[in-house]
């Protein structure tokens, strides 16, 4: 499997400005040194609670939020070193699906105009090809070509999300980044959209990156999962490994909080106390030490390094570092 997209030590820090002269008084460490990669044909999930930096990481990869540090490589080329026209070309191979199917479609454009917009921008599928392409895309996402003449407000949330997906597919991208692609939808519609994404991934040979707080969604979609907490990755594992043997105490707590469909099954809830620390002033050492049920003396002093725990499974926790003897 070849690596398509790689982020090395990615940092996004937002300056906090105060006063008349806009002095920078501090930073929001939204994404603070994150490494991950996306292989061709796989689905990578990024999970974490709100404010952990998962969306910012996705936006930085797309170039919509400038990264303040680190590198993003696309097909072994550094995005920062690319020229404008190269970046524009790159845009066509990376596309976004948005969370809110209501605000992500311009209410004044017809569906055809919305889907054709990317083709106009990049000057592809011109003339007679356009009509066929639009019909093909609409049919691919489960709409009819006739519906292309309508306006977004005439569609339900699920249909709108399909329109958003058709727009993302318009330029034959190789990567699609879904930022909470189904969280705004009804649970019954969520399943349809997830199945659609899985089918499109096969048909179009796509690599997906799914950002979500919903473990059930990630479970269905993803091959590999990254868990983020306050701007850092704390655990990364293949889907099966993570669900079977979560290592980091935070991941364990997160998984124990996911609803189970069987009401009679005994739940072993791990309750965390306190709030998520602010990314403006992240805790020293391990960022989770303020809430960790298995806290040790070392945790608030030394930041844990990643420990490899089996194939592709790494965790940043002192419970598993060499010194603690595991």
């Amino acid at each position, binding site marked *: 499997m070849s690596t398509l997209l790689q982020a090395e030590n990615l940092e996004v820090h937002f300056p906090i400005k105060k006063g008349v002269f*806009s002095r920078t008084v501090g930073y929001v460490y939204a994404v603070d040194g994150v490494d991950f990669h996306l292989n061709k044909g796989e689905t990578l999930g990024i999970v974490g609670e709100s404010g952990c930096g998962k969306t910012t990481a996705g936006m930085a990869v*797309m170039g*919509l939020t400038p990264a303040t540090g680190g590198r993003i490589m696309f097909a072994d080329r550094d995005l920062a070193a690319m020229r404008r026209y190269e*970046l*524009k070309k790159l*845009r*066509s191979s*990376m*596309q*976004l699906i*948005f*969370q*809110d199917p209501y*605000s*992500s*479609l*311009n*209410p*004044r454009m017809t569906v055809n105009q919305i889907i054709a*917009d*990317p083709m106009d*921008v*990049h000057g592809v599928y011109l003339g007679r090809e356009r009509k066929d392409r639009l019909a093909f895309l609409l049919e691919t996402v*489960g*709409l009819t070509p006739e519906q292309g003449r*309508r*306006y977004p*407000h*005439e*569609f*339900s949330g*699920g*249909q709108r999300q399909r329109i*958003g997906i058709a*727009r993302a597919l318009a*330029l034959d991208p190789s990567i699609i980044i879904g930022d909470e692609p189904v969280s705004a939808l009804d649970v019954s*519609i969520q399943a*349809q959209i997830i199945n659609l994404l899985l089918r499109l991934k096969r048909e179009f040979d796509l690599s997906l990156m799914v950002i979500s707080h919903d473990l059930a969604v990630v479970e269905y979609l993803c091959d590999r999962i990254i868990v983020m907490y306050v701007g850092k990755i704390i655990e990364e594992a293949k889907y099966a490994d993570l669900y079977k043997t979560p290592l980091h105490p935070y991941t364990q707590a997160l998984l124990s909080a996911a609803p189970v469909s069987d009401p009679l099954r005994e739940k072993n809830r791990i309750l965390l106390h306190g709030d998520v620390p602010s990314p403006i002033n992240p805790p020293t050492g391990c960022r989770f030490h303020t809430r960790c049920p298995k806290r040790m003396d070392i945790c608030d002093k030394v930041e844990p390094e990643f420990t490899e725990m089996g194939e592709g499974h790494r965790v940043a926790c002192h419970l598993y570092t060499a010194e603690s003897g595991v």
Partner: protein
Amino acid sequence: MEGAEPTTPMGVPLYRRRWRRFYQHRRGYYSLILFTFLFTLSLFAECISNDKPFLLRHDGKYYFPILFSYPETDFGGDFATEADYLDPYMHELLDSPGDFMLFPPNRYSYDTINMGIEGPVPAPPSGANFLGTDDRGRDVLARLIYGFRLSVLFGLSLTFIGTTVGIIAGAIQGYVGGRTDLFAQRFIEIWSSMPELYLLIIFSSIFSPSLLLLLILLSLFSWMGLSDYVRAEFFKGRNLEYVTAARALGVNNLTIMRRHLLPNAMTPVITFLPFRMSAAILALTSLDFLGLGVPPSTPSLGELLAQGKANIDAWWLSLSSFVVLVGMLILLIFIGEALRDVFDPRRK
């Protein structure tokens, strides 16, 4: 739910639904029709009220004085200056059989002085001057027609310039935001606190008054109210996901502003148009009334009102200009009301 057929009224594009709603607003609709009709009519003021005939026949030859200027000598007169077709002398010249002059309905232009008035000016309405004359013997009806046209044209251009500048300023402020917005907003605060009227008085005493100068001076101030609304709309719009989507596609900023943000920011712009226009007309009229407006002899409603005030017993001056001015403003306000209702999101 998925694939459900949308109902028909929702299938109609927004602008057509709005047009239908405007049409249903009878008062506004008829005001628009009447205003457009009057304005179009006034654009042909030269054919309605003019001291030159459409057609003139002399010695078997046809002349078109409304289009071309002919010297008096062409008709057998003494001087090489342009013929005065209202002069009784012309009637004496055109004495050969078959000679005639075909005049517009009102035989005076805005600056024609009726030399045939017996008695003092301003002269009351008569068969020759339907609405009387002003204090210089010029026909009031002619001055009203031309004054109406000038007011509307002035209002249109001032509204157009102010709206364009307001949209551009507001769009840049709202889209760029940050420091640009901060400084622009402070500039607007300072600029809007300048005493407009004093500035106009000062400028009109330095420069010789002209319509262009007035237009420029009033434009300097007329854009500010609107830019705030456009700025707010752009602020709201720039973080919407479809704008992020457009940016993710690599659409450049100008196109995003034009295609994705501006159409959604047009509601305050369009709603304010008629009100802005009536404000612009009123501004011109008040400046004319104060004698700070258009140069002398230009047909103007404000100047006519001032004459009415100076000659309070010449009721035809104040009454006729008052009726025209109020009528014009009422039509614009009715149109504006209808537009406001059409664009009101709470009225479905």
